[in-house]
């Protein structure tokens, strides 16, 4: 059904059959009849609290909830003769938790585990069959704050560090047969940590002041080392690496990934925080906080099929199903003066590079001169041209990254001229310019970058390996990772019901893993980009080198509609429903539940898809060398198929990706995909002077791309070594020698050994006689102006 690769097209008759074109366009579009509504999905940092918690647990782990409750009640009975938590006074409750903490350091692993189970039960809000679901969350929150005050967080991480080391060498090399029985302890610890982090990550306006204080200090402590030098994030990444290189294949990978995601989210903040940080950074360097989106007073005229100057299309075809577009259907033929609300809903931007290039070309064309260096001087250009340039300049948007790159360039040049103090010149600047004072910056993103920097390539590779193993389109190969270690039940399923449950479970498991990885990568990319462009570039370069682009495309090479509406859900087995229902030990295949849920899509799958598309777009934005990769991997048909998903944000990013490739795809493609092109025109922001649809300079030289990639790599390395390497960089030149500025101290100059020729040594007395004694020299004048003296002709020997 894909019509790309040269567009099937006019079958040799030479005459374009318009009806054929229209038929193709109709096939092109969404097959759903009429205007199906868009998916009601609101993109956010995470799903709801309840959903996120339920996704922590696989269905095969459902029986374990009851054991936590039993253990808790037993412990409570032994200490206090009651099994009801609410019966205890606050001091007793604190005392109980502290005694549990004491058991974290006992030698016997079972004892430790029991303590963790009790705390986990508390962290879940003391569920029981007669408890109402709405009361679980506030109880859980109160319990977690109490536990935080007593230091449960640090103690759990220390326990995690202990449990991490168990099983070393036991599972190495064993490929299959890892079930949830093999990582029980780890799962408990990680679950406890996850519930704490997830709860803390969500602020609540009703919190009392000490809770607010505790939450704030908790979030700060996430960036601080907890066990030795390791922060929680670095510990988790170490576990991830160990899992991926096969030394610890029994690690519960889904939990590790979810915990990484939530820790980073809590530490650095989500979408709203990111917006705030970006605005602040922009204001610090003097840029306007945002690109002003003032709608033009006269809306631009849309080239709709209804408005057809040549009258080729008949009336019936004018009401083509415009499923993708946002424009309403009331286009009447010939009605050009459309009132507001019909225009494009964005204001076009211009890049400063494009504007400067345009000015330069105007100069050479109209002014018949060239300055060779761009710039925005309008002198010498005719008045209308000047006006057009001024309009262009009104639309210029200077991204923060441009400023940061320029700062780095200046710092580099300054360093080359500076005296060798061993510190980069940028550090010596006393003004607190938010860009270069990186070493003085103390935000969580910066500390996370420092933590991740030494092994970032391996972490990226590990994340992508797991993503590959979890993608729905990949077949299990011998050397791919076994990610099912924390979902497979210990005993194999015996009947149909259990088999179906395990299948659903496994699919759901994979979906959650994809969600966690995609969210983590996007979050890191976004935060690093705002913090410093080169941090972002470092991470994205390693992603690209690890083949992220083909991986994401492979992920999209499936039936997206099916994926988005997948229903791997057993609502009665989801937490907390499974613990609030009476325990009857029977799972019925309630397929009918699927219709009661919702809006026809799976939140986590749509979320993952949007994240992946955004990651792809971020990696390739403004980089021709990576866009060409998109073309080479034949991403256009894949992306077009993905356009069928009716969600504006997802479609927007897919259209952005298609937009950058359009000029490489060939005239036939453009001709046969006019609907897509018009959708791009309507939805994606224009950049003035960006001829994305014309494909003028088609075969941009492929060999340049490698060079550009490597030039970027060199800048990134320079950045990293300047600011983050343990020993300060010394000035070196490319040949390995050490450069230092020329010494102008007269003593050292006079002390230098100057090799004299043999002839000179024999005849020097004559020279002295003639040049020095006999020639009259006004030495005072020499001291005044040395250049004047230089004009005298020396005597050659």
């Amino acid at each position: 059904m894909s019509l790309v690769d040269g567009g099937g097209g006019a079958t040799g008759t030479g005459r374009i059959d318009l009806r054929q074109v229209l038929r193709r366009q109709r096939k092109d579009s969404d097959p759903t009849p009429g205007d199906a509504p868009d998916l009601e999905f609101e993109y956010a940092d995470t799903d709801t609290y309840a959903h996120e918690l339920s996704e922590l647990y696989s269905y095969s782990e459902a029986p374990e909830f009851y054991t936590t409750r039993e253990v808790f009640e037993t412990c409570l009975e032994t200490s206090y003769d009651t099994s009801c938590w609410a019966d205890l006074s606050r001091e007793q409750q604190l005392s109980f938790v502290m005694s549990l903490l004491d058991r974290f350091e006992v030698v016997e692993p079972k004892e430790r585990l029991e303590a963790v189970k009790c705390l986990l039960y508390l962290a879940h809000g003391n569920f029981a069959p007669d408890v109402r679901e709405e009361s679980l969350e506030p109880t859980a929150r109160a319990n977690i704050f109490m536990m935080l005050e007593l230091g449960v967080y640090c103690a759990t991480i220390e326990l995690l560090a202990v449990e991490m080391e168990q099983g070393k060498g036991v599972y190495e090399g064993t490929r299959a047969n890892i079930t949830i029985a093999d990582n029980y302890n780890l799962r408990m610890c990680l679950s406890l940590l996850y519930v704490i982090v997830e709860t803390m990550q969500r602020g609540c306006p009703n919190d009392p002041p000490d809770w607010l204080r505790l939450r704030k200090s908790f979030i700060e402590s996430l960036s601080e080392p907890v066990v030795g030098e390791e922060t929680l994030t670095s510990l988790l990444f170490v576990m991830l690496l160990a899992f991926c290189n096969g030394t610890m294949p029994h690690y519960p990978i889904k939990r590790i990934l979810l915990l990484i995601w939530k820790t980073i989210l809590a530490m650095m903040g989500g979408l709203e925080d990111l917006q705030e940080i970006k605005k602040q950074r922009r204001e610090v360097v003097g840029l306007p906080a945002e690109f002003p989106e003032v709608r033009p007073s006269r809306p631009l005229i849309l080239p709709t099929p209804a408005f057809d100057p040549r009258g080729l299309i008949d009336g019936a075809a004018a009401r083509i199903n415009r499923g993708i577009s946002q424009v309403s259907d009331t286009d009447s033929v010939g009605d050009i003066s459309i009132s507001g609300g019909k225009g494009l809903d964005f204001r076009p931007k211009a890049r400063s590079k494009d504007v400067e290039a345009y000015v330069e070309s105007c100069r050479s064309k109209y002014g018949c001169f060239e300055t060779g260096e761009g710039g925005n001087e309008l002198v010498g250009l005719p008045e209308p041209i000047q006006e057009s340039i001024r309009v262009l300049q009104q639309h210029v948007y200077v991204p923060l990254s441009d400023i940061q790159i320029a700062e780095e360039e200046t710092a580099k040049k300054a360093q080359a001229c500076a005296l060798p103090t061993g510190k980069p010149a940028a550090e010596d600047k006393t003004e607190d310019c938010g860009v270069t004072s990186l070493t003085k910056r103390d935000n969580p993103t910066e500390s996370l970058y420092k933590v991740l920097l030494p092994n970032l390539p391996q972490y990226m590779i590990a994340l992508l390996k797991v993503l590959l193993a979890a993608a729905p389109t990949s077949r299990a190969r011998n050397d791919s990772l076994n990610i099912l270690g924390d979902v497979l039940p210990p005993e194999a399923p015996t009947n149909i019901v259990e088999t179906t449950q395990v299948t659903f479970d496994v699919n759901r498991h994979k979906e959650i893993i994809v969600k966690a990885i995609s969210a983590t990568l996007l979050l890191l990319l976004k935060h690093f980009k705002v913090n410093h462009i080169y941090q972002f570039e470092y991470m994205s370069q390693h992603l690209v080198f690890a083949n992220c682009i083909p991986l994401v495309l492979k992920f999209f090479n499936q039936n997206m509609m099916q994926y988005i509406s997948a229903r791997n859900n057993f609502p009665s087995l989801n937490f907390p429903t499974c613990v609030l229902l009476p325990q009857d030990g029977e799972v019925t295949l309630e397929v009918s539940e699927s219709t009661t849920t919702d809006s026809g899509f799976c939140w986590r799958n749509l979320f993952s898809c949007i994240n992946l598309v955004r990651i792809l777009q971020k990696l390739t934005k403004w980089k021709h060398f990576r866009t060409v990769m998109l073309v080479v991997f034949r991403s256009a048909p894949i992306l077009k198929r993905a356009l069928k998903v009716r969600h504006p944000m997802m479609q927007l990013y897919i259209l952005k990706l298609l937009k950058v490739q359009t000029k490489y795809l060939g005239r036939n493609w453009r001709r046969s995909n006019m609907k897509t092109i018009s959708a791009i025109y309507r939805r994606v922001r224009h950049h003035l002077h960006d001829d994305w649809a014309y494909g003028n300079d088609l075969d941009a030289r492929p060999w340049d791309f490698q060079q550009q990639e490597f030039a970027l790599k060199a800048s990134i390395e320079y950045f990293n070594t300047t600011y983050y390497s343990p020993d300060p960089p010394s000035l070196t030149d490319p040949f390995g020698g050490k450069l230092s500025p020329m010494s102008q101290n007269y003593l050292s100059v006079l002390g230098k050994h100057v090799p004299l020729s043999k002839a000179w040594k024999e005849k020097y007395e004559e020279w002295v006689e003639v040049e020095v004694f006999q020639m009259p020299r006004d030495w005072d004048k020499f001291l005044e102006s040395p250049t004047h003296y230089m004009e005298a002709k020396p005597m050659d020997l």
Partner: protein
Amino acid sequence: MAAESEQRILRRNRPGTKAKDFYSWPPQDFNDMDTILAVQQYIQYMIRKDHTDVDAILEPPEGHDDLAVWKYEHLRQFCLELNHMAVRLQNECDPVICTKMKATEQWIFLCAAHGEPKECSALDYTLHTLHGASCLLNSNKHFDSRVSIRESSVQRLGSIARRIYRIFSHAFFHHQQLFAEFEGETSLCLRFTRFVTKYGLMSRENLLVPIDGVSSPVVSQQDEGGDEGGDEGAGETEA
């Protein structure tokens, strides 16, 4: 400072001072102490004044309202004084005999001072824990100031207290004579018990040493004979 200007009293132990003449300077009011180490000075002074009056030692002086700093300084002081106990234990607590760190038979504890917690012998546990606690309490990362403690670092005080307490409980149940002598000279266990109870750093369930109204634990060695309220046990050390 006018009173001091005529005759500056230097509160120092000069080289050559004999041990019995140490600290022989006039007391100073807490609010006059013009140093960031005022809290430590005050605590040490109160201990010297009367080590059995634990309530007075544990009561923060007027003018000092930062409870976190108060707890921190006390914990520090406990670590300092426990070193004397460690010295005495070195002679008695033979790693061959007390191979595990335990007080009662209920639980054996891991020594958390290593990268990977180990089952150290009791003496090793004592030494490592004291060393680890001092490192932590002195570390710049977590406790970078003597006059204000970060919230996240306050949470660590509980775990330090728990680990240190095990030294007391081990000494009580396995080296009773030594414990009794030491307690008679310093009242350290009594002070520690009252300290953790007063400031909520440990639960009473984990206080195993029967002192200060703490009853004997349910599961205890029968031949140790820990009596309620007494801190002179007449039992023998475990063979």
